[in-house]
C-alpha cells in the first residue's frame, strides 16, 4: 500500500526550513559530538617540576575522565612566563585543542609591567583551579624568626627579599608591608619558586615572599610569618597572621591563581567546543576524586576554588590595575 502525501506550500516551506536548519546544524552538532577527537595540548609557561606542573597533573587527572581525552602538557618557561603566552598566542591554532594553563596573578601582572605583543583581550581564562595567597617566610635557621624581627631590622638596614619574579602578587604584598611599617625592602628576583625557597633557606637573601602553596610543599625547611591574604590552612602555614589582621590594613588578597585559558577566537569560532570544555571543567570540580588527587600530589585542597569566565575576568582586571599602580616599583623606573 502506498500513501500519497500532499505537499502543499506551507508544508514544503516548513520542511525545507527544518531540513536546512538540520543540514546547517548537523556538522556543528557532529563536530561538537565528536569533540574532542584528539588530545588537548596545554601550554604551561613555567618549568617542569614546579607548582604549576604539580597542580596541572592533579587537576587534569580528573578532568580527562570527564572530557574523554588526555591532556598533553608542553612547558615553555622564560621571561617571567611571557615566552609561554607569546608562543600560545602566536603559534597555537585557536581551535579549542590548545589551552594555556597559567597563573593569573604574576602572569597578568606582567602585562601591566611590560605589554605583550598580543592584545591581552585576545585570550580569556575560563577555568580557575585555585587561589593561593602569597606569604612571607624565613628559612628555618634564619636569625629573623618573627615579624617584629623583620620590621625592626628593616628599619635599620634595607633587607634583601627573594621573590620568584619582580611582577608577582607576593612582591606587591611586600611593598605594601614596607609602606605600612616603614621597613626597607629590596626585592631580589630568584627565578622560580624553588630558587626562592632555596634563597631563604640557604641565606642568599634575608627572607622571601612566595605563593603559600609552595611553602606548604617545602615543609619544615621554612617558617611562614605573614600571609598576604587569609590563612586558610592554619598550622601548615605556622599559624601566620594575615596582613590585614596584623597591621589593620584593608588590602585585597595578593593571590596567585592558576587557571585554564583559551584563545578568544576559539571561543568565537567554536562555541560548542568551548561549552564542552566549560561543562567538563566544572564537572571535574564536582568530582570528589579531585580532592584525593590534590592530597596525593601534596597540593593544598583548601586552595581549590572553582571560578568561571566572570570570576577569571574580574581577577584579570584587578591584576592589571594592581600592576599599573606598582609599575614604577616593579620595573625600577
Amino acid at each position, binding site marked *: 500500500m502506498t500513501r500519497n502525501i500532499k505537499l502543499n506550500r506551507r508544508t514544503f516551506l516548513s520542511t525545507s526550513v527544518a531540513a536546512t536548519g538540520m543540514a546547517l546544524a548537523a556538522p556543528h552538532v557532529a563536530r561538537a559530538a565528536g569533540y574532542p577527537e584528539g588530545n588537548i595540548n596545554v601550554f604551561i609557561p613555567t618549568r617542569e*617540576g614546579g607548582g604549576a606542573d604539580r597542580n596541572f597533573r592533579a587537576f587534569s587527572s580528573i578532568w580527562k575522565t570527564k572530557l574523554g581525552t588526555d591532556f598533553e602538557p608542553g612547558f615553555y618557561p622564560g621571561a*617571567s612566563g611571557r615566552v609561554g603566552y607569546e608562543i600560545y598566542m602566536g603559534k597555537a591554532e585557536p581551535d579549542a585543542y590548545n589551552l594555556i594553563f597559567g597563573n593569573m596573578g604574576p602572569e597578568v601582572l606582567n602585562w601591566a609591567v611590560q605589554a605583550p605583543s598580543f592584545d591581552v583581550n585576545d585570550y580569556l581564562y575560563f577555568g580557575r583551579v585555585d587561589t593561593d595567597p602569597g606569604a612571607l617566610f624565613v628559612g628555618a635557621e634564619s636569625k629573623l624568626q618573627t615579624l617584629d624581627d623583620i620590621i625592626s631590622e628593616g628599619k635599620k638596614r634595607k633587607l634583601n627579599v627573594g621573590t620568584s619574579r619582580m611582577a608577582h602578587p607576593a612582591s606587591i604584598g611586600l611593598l605594601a608591608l614596607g609602606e605600612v611599617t616603614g621597613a626597607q625592602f629590596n626585592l631580589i628576583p630568584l627565578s622560580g619558586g624553588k630558587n626562592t625557597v632555596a634563597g631563604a633557606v640557604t641565606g642568599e637573601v634575608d627572607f622571601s615572599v612566595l605563593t603559600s602553596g609552595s611553602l606548604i610543599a617545602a615543609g619544615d625547611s621554612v617558617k611562614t610569618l605573614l600571609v598576604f591574604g587569609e590563612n586558610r590552612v592554619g598550622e601548615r602555614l605556622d599559624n601566620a597572621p594575615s596582613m590585614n589582621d596584623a597591621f589593620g590594613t584593608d588590602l585585597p588578597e595578593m593571590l596567585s591563581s592558576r587557571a585554564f585559558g583559551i584563545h578568544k577566537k576559539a571561543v568565537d569560532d567554536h562555541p560548542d567546543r568551548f561549552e564542552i570544555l566549560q561543562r567538563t571543567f566544572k564537572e571535574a570540580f564536582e568530582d570528589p576524586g579531585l580532592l584525593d588527587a590534590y592530597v596525593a600530589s601534596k597540593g593544598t585542597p583548601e586552595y581549590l576554588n572553582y571560578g568561571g569566565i566572570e570570576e577569571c575576568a574580574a581577577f584579570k582586571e584587578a591584576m592589571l590595575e594592581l600592576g599599573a599602580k606598582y609599575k614604577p616599583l616593579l620595573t625600577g623606573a
Partner: protein
Amino acid sequence: MDASTILLEVFLSTISYWYVIIPTIFLGLIVGGVPGFSAANTIIILMPLTLAMDLEMGLVFMVTLYCAARMGAGIPAILVNIPGTAGAAATPLDGYPMSKQGKGQQALAISFVSSSLGGLLTTIVALLTMPILARVGFYMHSVEMIVVMLFGISLIASIAAQDMLKGLIAGFLGLMIGSIGTDVVYATPRGTFGFLELYDGVPLIPALVGLFAVSEAFIIIEKKVIVNKSEDGTTPTANWHDTFEGVRISLKRWWHIMWTSLIGLVIGVIPGAGASIASFVAYQQSRSFSKTPEKYGTGHPEGLIAPEAANNGVTSGTLVPLLVLGIPGGATAAIMLVVMQFHGVSFGPSLFESQPEIGYGMFMAMAVAYLLMVLTILPLSRYMSHVTTIPTIYLAPMIISFTLVGGFVPREYMFDMYLALGFGVLGYIARRTGYHVAAILIGVILGPLLETYFLRALKKSDGDITVLFSSTLGNILWVALAASLILPIVMDMRRKKQGVPAE
C-alpha cells in the same frame, strides 16, 4: 635499627631490582647519547609508567636512568664530537682528539671507568657526609658563585694562550651570544632580534650540537673516515687491548678521578649549579695543576677524566639538597621530586627519620647502578668505537640529521634546528680560520650563569661593586682563582729556567 643494618637491607633490596636496572642502563645510555634527550625529559615522557611502579622500583628506575644518561652523553662527545648534553660539553675537548687518533675505544673505556668510579665514590662520600654537604649551599651564594663561574670561564684564557687575540675574540663572541635573551631582573628582552624563541636565551643544545657536531660534519666530509690513518696508511682497528689500556690508564690516575669527581659533588649540591659548570671547572683545575698543560686539547687522558668524573659527581650531589632540604639541585632532581610527591614522600630533614629506606635507597640505587654500569658497558666500548670507522659519506649526513633532530627535541621549535645549522656554519668558519669553538661555547654556556649571579649580587648590594669582595669564602676563592691562573705560569717559567722539559 642502626644505619648499617638499614644500608644492608637497602642494598639487598636494590640489587633485587637488577631486572629494572640493566635495561634502564641501556635506555639511559641511548637518551643520554642522543642530543636533546636527557634523563629529565625521558622521566617526564615515561611518567605514567613511573607512577604506576611501586615507589622503590620507581626510585631505582629514575636514579639509574639519571646516572646512565649522564654517562651516555659522553659517548657521542668522544666518538663524533657531539656532546649529548651541556654537562658533556667539556668531554670532546680531549675525548674527540683521542678518537681521531684511533683511540676511540680507549677513550670510551677511560670515560666509562672515570664516570663509574667518580659516580660511585661521590655517592659514598655524599652518603657519609650528607649533613655537612647540605651546608655547602648555605655558604655558596651569588658572590662565591661568580668566582666559581670565573674558574670555568678562565679556560678561555688557557685556550687563548695558543693565539691570544683569536682566543679572546672567540670567548667574547660566546659571552655576547650568551647575553641574548631577557635580563634576569626585569625580564627586558636584549639582542633577541624580535625572535620570541630567543627570549629565554640562546638554547644550549642547538648551540652545542651546532658548534661541535654540525661544524665537525662539514669538516669530516673532506676525509674518508674520522680516524687519522696511521703512518703505514692503514686505519687503526679496534681490539680488546685498547679497552684494557683505557682501564689501566684510568686506574693509574685514580687520584685524579677522586679529586675531580669531588669538585663535581661540591658544585652539584649547590642549588641551581650543574654539570656544565662542574665539568668546565674540573677541566680547568685539572689543566692548571697538570705538569703537562700543553697536552690538554690534544687527546690527553686527564683532560677526559676530569669532566667525566666531575659531571658524574654532580649526579649524586644534586640529590643531597633534594633529600636533606627538599630543594632539588637540578632539573632531573626536580622531576624526581614531582614523582615522589605523587607517592606521598615528604622531603626535608625528617626524611631520614620517617622513611630512611627512601633517603638511603636513592643513594644505594645510584651506587648499584654505577657498579652494574661499569660491568655491562665496558665490554661494549669495542663495538661502539666502530662508529669512527664509518665512511664519512654516510656518517656526516647522519650526524647532521641526528643533531638537527636533537636540536629540535628539547623545545620542539623549528627555529632551534635553523639555529643549530647557523651555529654549525659559525663553528665551521671559526675552525677554518683558527678560532677555537670551545672558547665560544664556554661563553655561551657559562656567560648567562655568570650574568645571573653577577646581577643578583649587584642588586643585593644596591649596585655596590665591592660586594664582590665582601665575603670571607668569596675572598678565599678569589685568591684560589688567582693562584690557579698564576701558578702554572710561574711553574712553567721555573721549569724553563731550570731547563727541565715540560715532559
